[in-house]
């Protein structure tokens, strides 16, 4: 039985629904020896800002129960160096390249989005309005419906590319923010970014991370992320990219059944670089075993009809 794994993300067609999460896969080359990049549904880059950013001082990461905290702080070479040095190699495997965009101001997001939209190698933009690790990292946009609306509308006005908005879990209610993003022109929502957390070194009696707080990722956050996808699916009618602690195909299926059209693997790639391939194989096997010919038919299937 052949299974149709292709998905349509707001006009962006993917051969399969398994992507990598921003910031966990570098710029593609780092994992080239270990992963067949051409088998990915899409490559999602580390966040790009207008100017280069040095990122936060170390320590930047800390292991936690079934997870990790990170406070990288958007380290990146800046827009022009990204376009010149990173984009050509990202595009080489021939899978859609989604560029994650961050900024300290609305004007910065717009400038980066406009420049990237003129580039044929960029298949879609993912607006990072949810980075918890820099004061001016975008999360302040993503925790308020009105600022989300303003930012998404401004970027929408300069870009015709499929526009993905990556939502923050660090909110009381995600649905108003999801609705604001969609009303302002978002084609797709990524749910979710890392959960704000921290760890204390009890020997030294100080925070482990130099940034004090960081974003929690890994299997520890999966139930939270699945719940957020469930809620967003009920609030809007655009495709959702589900992510947060996916380690296996069964984890990915939870997200799909909760309402995700595609899924992204993040922290799991650090633990096992083969995860993306294993998730894809597992999704196909699940469909074959359960007689599902189109994976897309499973999207949101756990919701009462």
């Amino acid at each position: 039985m052949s299974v149709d794994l292709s998905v349509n993300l707001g006009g962006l067609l993917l051969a399969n629904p398994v992507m990598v999460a921003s910031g966990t896969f570098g710029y593609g080359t780092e994992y080239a020896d270990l992963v067949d990049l051409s088998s990915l549904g899409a490559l999602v880059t580390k966040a790009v800002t207008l100017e280069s950013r040095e990122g936060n001082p170390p320590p930047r990461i800390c292991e936690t129960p079934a997870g990790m905290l990170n406070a990288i702080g958007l380290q990146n070479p800046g827009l022009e160096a990204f376009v010149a040095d990173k984009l050509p190699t990202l595009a080489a495997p021939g899978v859609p390249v989604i560029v994650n965009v961050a900024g300290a101001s609305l004007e910065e997001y717009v400038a980066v989005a406009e420049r990237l939209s003129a580039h044929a190698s960029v298949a879609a933009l993912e607006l990072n309005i949810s980075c918890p690790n820099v004061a001016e990292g975008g999360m302040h946009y993503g925790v308020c419906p009105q600022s989300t609306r303003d930012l998404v509308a401004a970027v929408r006005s300069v870009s015709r590319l499929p526009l993905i908005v990556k939502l923050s879990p660090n909110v009381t209610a995600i649905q108003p923010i999801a609705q604001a993003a969609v009303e302002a022109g978002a084609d797709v929502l990524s749910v979710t970014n890392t959960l704000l957390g921290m760890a204390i070194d009890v020997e030294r009696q100080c925070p482990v991370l130099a940034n004090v707080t960081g974003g929690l990722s890994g299997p520890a956050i999966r139930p939270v992320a699945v719940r957020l996808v469930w809620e967003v699916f009920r609030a809007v009618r655009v495709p959702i990219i589900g992510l947060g602690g996916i380690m296996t195909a069964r984890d990915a299926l939870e997200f799909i059944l909760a309402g995700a059209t595609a899924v992204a693997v993040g922290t799991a790639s650090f633990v096992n670089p083969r995860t993306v391939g294993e998730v894809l194989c597992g999704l196909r096997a699940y469909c074959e075993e359960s007689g599902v010919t189109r994976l897309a038919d499973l999207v949101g299937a756990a919701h009462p009809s």
Partner: protein
Amino acid sequence: MITSISARVERREQVTPVHVLLRVHAPEIAADAQPGQFVHLRASEAYDPLLRRPFSVMRTEAATGALDLLIQVVGRGSRLVADAVTGATFDLLGPLGVGFPLPPPGTPVSLVAGGVGVAPLIFLAEALSSAASPYEITGLFGARTAEFLCCWTEFAGRCTRFTAVTEDGSTGQQGLVTDFLAQHLAAQASRRVLPTVYACGPLPMLAAVAHLCSEHEVTAFVSLERWMGCGVGACLGCVVPSARAEGPRYVRVCKDGPVFLAGDLDWQAMPE
């Protein structure tokens, strides 16, 4: 080429109460690994502890595909690795990172090891002592107590001269290994060819090595250990501050290192 393999534990030797020497079968990695490179090892199939653990390669045997790793038990991850029984398997990624560049033939070499940091220097000493024109190797090995001078005979056996140093004087000289590096560098100052220093150990030791070598205008390469996420340069989690005028402010221990030219790092801004 980085490979990901399931490596079988072929031998486990308890070398001290807190150190275990594991020999694993990893032919693809053993064939490629250079002194100073490391492997990223998944300690458990469970999700806790979640992340891989980096271990320097201590020795390879290309003919048999054997790879030796020296494990010091410091926490739950290293405990799981150290407790492995013969026949167990570990998921290994490697070889990773940039190793030690070999000095020009004829250069005297000083190897400075602190505790379990001896592992990559044993590998380096082996390469240097078996080179076409062998090097004059001065080995300095320091640890808190005699117990932490793990595998010292294997290190000493490859050095032209060797000094063991313990903080409590329980074996060898009493003091810090860097005190003896200072003496050694002072004694070398009048030589026509200055030595090249290679060091691996705790961060304060490496900072002292960098400082001494800078004072004596001696080239030093240091191998750093940090918590790592991916191990392949993607996550930017294991960075340390760079002192170079060009390039990023923070460089990746896993990919740009773990071996760095000591003068390329900003020791003032180094995290604890």
